[in-house]
């Protein structure tokens, strides 16, 4: 019977994994059995005793050798980076854009282009977004009023409230922040957003601040990578990372279809993360950073042009998303997996992958490439909520179950595509659901223009027992997960 066959295959697979992953331990058993009979005769004890009676010089030099090796080891070990805590921005209810509001505004703004309005409606129907996503106040005007003043005020509202919440939660004082990294892809005023944060919170004058811009939806992980490099060099420091995307100046006001897509997907959001390399924070930190892997496919022209800011024939600026986006995302993911796989996969999966690789190269190229089972390496997956298609594609290629991608889908539904901060909303979802236990490994994957695929691996340091008070999901987690139909008829 087929179910019995699959059951037995399942046990065979389990057995194989157990043997390969614990190979060394299992190897010790026959050695122990070989050595055991000799113990009662005290031969080993005699040998140790005679060793201790040897020359003092030999003993001292071996002790010092051990001390040297230990010192070199501890000095060259990279510092542990802890994520003390993080907060996500919860937009006010007044900024909500239900489907009806969005379509009404669309009809009024694009009254000369009914075809474009219909296109936006079709996108919205299939987008996977819900009725509670938010756009900033300037975009609620008809027509939208994206002045620099309005963009700065959105930035202030979003960034300051997120950082305030983080400071209350972690108890950190502004004067204790040593490193500040702000990333916002499409809004970069001078002075920078990082200078704006320094001004508001009166941070120290020797702060190391950086403002990353133009780096797309994966910029949050790029900031984490930069923070990690800086924290390796500066002992006993705190780093504040702020990831956001300011929507106000980037709302496309033209009628080109390929450029209307971001209007339907991008929504307000921000996240503030506190990282530390202080040993005393290891007790209260929520997560520990294990790996950050960055892949850049910019050398391929198609990949470079697949998310491209340009002017339409009327001179209006918007972001053009190419039709090849999914294929390119798949390619970028493959490159990223090739690097991260050996770092995180258990030996059993790596062996299988190696065997199929050798088999394909030497024996028969027609063998199906083995896709490693990442569910062995991670308990939770945070896939950037770039759009429904991205999540579907990744679920298929990584062979994940609906529960694994639930955080991503629900974040897309409740908050929309908040660009670089979406990964943190997804982490918050998993915590709010009470699924985050100590020792759990989380894989955050994000894609961005350029084309980049970045991933970060975190290990949970402290079980999150109940939904945190300031979680953006606090008031709605009971309703989730919701069923998201393929098409929502508008």
């Amino acid at each position, binding site marked *: 019977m087929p179910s019995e066959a699959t059951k037995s295959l399942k046990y065979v697979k389990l057995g194989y994994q157990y043997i390969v992953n614990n190979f060394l331990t299992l190897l010790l058993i026959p050695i122990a059995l070989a050595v055991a009979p000799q113990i009662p005769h005290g031969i080993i004890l005699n040998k140790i005793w005679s060793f201790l009676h040897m020359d003092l010089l030999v003993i*001292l030099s071996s002790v*010092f050798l051990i*001390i*040297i090796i230990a*010192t*070199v080891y501890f*000095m060259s070990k990279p510092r542990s980076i802890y994520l003390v805590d993080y907060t996500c921005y919860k937009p006010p209810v007044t900024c909500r854009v239900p489907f009806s509001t969005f379509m009404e505004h669309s009809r009024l703004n694009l009254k000369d282009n009914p075809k474009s309005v219909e296109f936006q409606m079709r996108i919205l129907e299939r987008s996977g977004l819900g009725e509670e996503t938010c756009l900033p106040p300037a975009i609620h005007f008809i027509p939208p009023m994206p*002045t*620099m003043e309005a963009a700065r005020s959105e930035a202030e509202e979003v960034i300051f409230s997120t950082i305030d919440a983080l400071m209350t939660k972690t108890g950190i004082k502004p004067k204790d922040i040593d490193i500040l990294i702000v990333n916002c*892809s*499409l*809004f*970069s*005023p*001078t*002075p*920078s957003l*990082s*200078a*704006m944060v*320094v*001004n508001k919170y009166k*941070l*120290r*004058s*020797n*702060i*190391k*601040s*950086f*403002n*990353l*811009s*133009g*780096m*797309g939806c994966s910029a949050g992980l790029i900031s984490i990578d*930069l923070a990690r*490099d800086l924290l*390796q*060099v500066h002992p006993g420091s705190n780093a504040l990372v702020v990831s956001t995307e300011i929507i106000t100046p980037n709302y496309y006001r033209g009628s080109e279809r390929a450029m209307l897509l971001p209007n339907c997907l991008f929504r307000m959001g921000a996240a503030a993360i506190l990282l530390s390399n202080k040993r005393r924070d290891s007790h209260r930190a929520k997560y520990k950073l294990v790996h950050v892997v960055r*892949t*850049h*496919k*910019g*050398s391929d*022209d198609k990949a*470079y042009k697949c*998310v*491209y*800011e*340009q*002017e339409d024939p009327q*001179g209006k*600026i918007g*972001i053009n998303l190419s039709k090849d986006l999914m294929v390119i995302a798949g390619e970028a993911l493959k*490159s990223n997996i090739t*690097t991260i796989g050996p770092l995180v996969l258990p030996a059993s999966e790596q062996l299988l992958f190696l065997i199929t690789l050798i088999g394909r190269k030497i024996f028969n190229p027609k063998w199906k490439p083995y896709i490693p089972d990442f569910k062995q390496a991670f308990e939770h997956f945070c896939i950037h909520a770039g759009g429904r298609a991205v999540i579907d594609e990744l679920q298929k290629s990584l062979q994940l179950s609906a529960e694994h991608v639930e955080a991503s889908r629900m974040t897309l539904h409740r908050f929309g595509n908040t660009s670089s901060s979406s990964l943190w909303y997804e982490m918050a979802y998993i915590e709010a659901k009470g699924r985050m236990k100590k020792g759990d490994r989380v894989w955050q994957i994000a894609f961005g*223009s*350029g084309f*980049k695929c970045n991933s970060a691996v975190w290990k949970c340091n402290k079980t999150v027992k109940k939904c945190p008070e300031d979680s953006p999901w606090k008031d709605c987690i009971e309703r989730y997960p919701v069923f998201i139909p393929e098409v929502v008829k508008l």
Partner: protein
Amino acid sequence: MELIMLAICIWTLLFSFYHFCKKRDQCCYLLHYECHKPSDDRKLNTELSGSIVARNLNLGHLEYKFMLRAIVNSGIGEDSYGPRNIIDGRENSHSLEDGILEMDEFFKDTLSQLFVKTKVSPKEIDLLVVNVSLLSCAPSLASRIINMYQMRDDVKSYNLSGMGCSASIISINIVSNFFKSHRNSMALVVTSESIAPNWYSGNDKSMMLTNCLFRSGGCTMLLTNKPAMKNRSKLQLKCLVRTHLGASDEAYTCGMQKEDSQGILGFYLDKNLPKTAKRAFTQNIAIIAKTCLSYTELLRYFVMKYSKKKATLNFKAGIDHFCMHPGGTAVIEEIRKGLGLNHEDVEPSKMSLHRFGNTSASSLWYVLGYMEAQKRMKKGDKLWMIGFGSGFKCNSCVWEVIRDLEDANVWEDVIKNEKEEVNPFMDRFSWINQDTYDPPPGSLFQKKM
């Protein structure tokens, strides 16, 4: 007992050797740098500058006079460069393409030369840092360079934006931090400013200064921490200090991009900017003096200070060359007085301002290029680079010259011709400095009226 002492000595020796090797691998060497010299058809001479100013229909009589006065007193000469759209008359109808074209010309000019001269392939680059303050596009300029030069897919790239005129030192900061945790690496830093989409077409006087001062330019630098490349390198980074005065509201608002009362976007420069620069500079000096001045000088200073005599630090005791940001004649003069330097010490900055204008973050490298072209940099010399930027930041770093430098680079034509420093605007518009409302007949101003 002797054995224990011997063991301790061996341990200390081994430990110091390990530490020395580690430190050696963490050093930041500047292998080469290339400044951008745009083509001659992009030169902004007196005639062209005057006509561009006259084209602005928003300017009233007083604003026009103010703008010309600013250009006359700016210290900028006949040969600085502007972006194509402004020269072609499209300063008010710029497109995203114009901004990117300006950057493309800069990348193609400098990066190709950089890779050829250093014989380094783009595939060897491990870290790319790009800083352009006033242009932010998707994909980022860093991705654009990766695409143009086919870099590896595990290259780490960072695109900084909005960080003002001192951003190139911030980029060097990222590189030096990276070198401390990654051995045998190569880093590429690309620094520039986008002038094309940032011409101010309004009539607010405090925002017009940027039109008069900022010019097109850029610089690309190749850095490494490979010990084997030390002998080929030009400079070694000794220390880097960053000071951020953003906590003070006055400092934060003294250089700001915003809309004027008519909704036109421009860059506002406050009257108090030189004062703020001095404050930031003082704080920065306090930290860097400890690291780069000799102990005898520091001792002398403290003795004089505690004996209540007038105490000034003599920076020439530890620094041989001063490379300061040519932000404008006022800023250069303020720093010169603050440091107690004479006019010869700030000559490179003044010459750079005259020849290339204020090219924002990359201007420090033009100043460095001038000193190198004049064959002033000898092995062992110490060079102090000081940059200011909106925020308000003062960033500075000290470099040590590894070998005698004599590459004329973009200053070749100036060195050859040895022109005397002349203010060309003064000839044509000298009447502007007089408080009279009667322009000479035939002048552009009269034509406008």
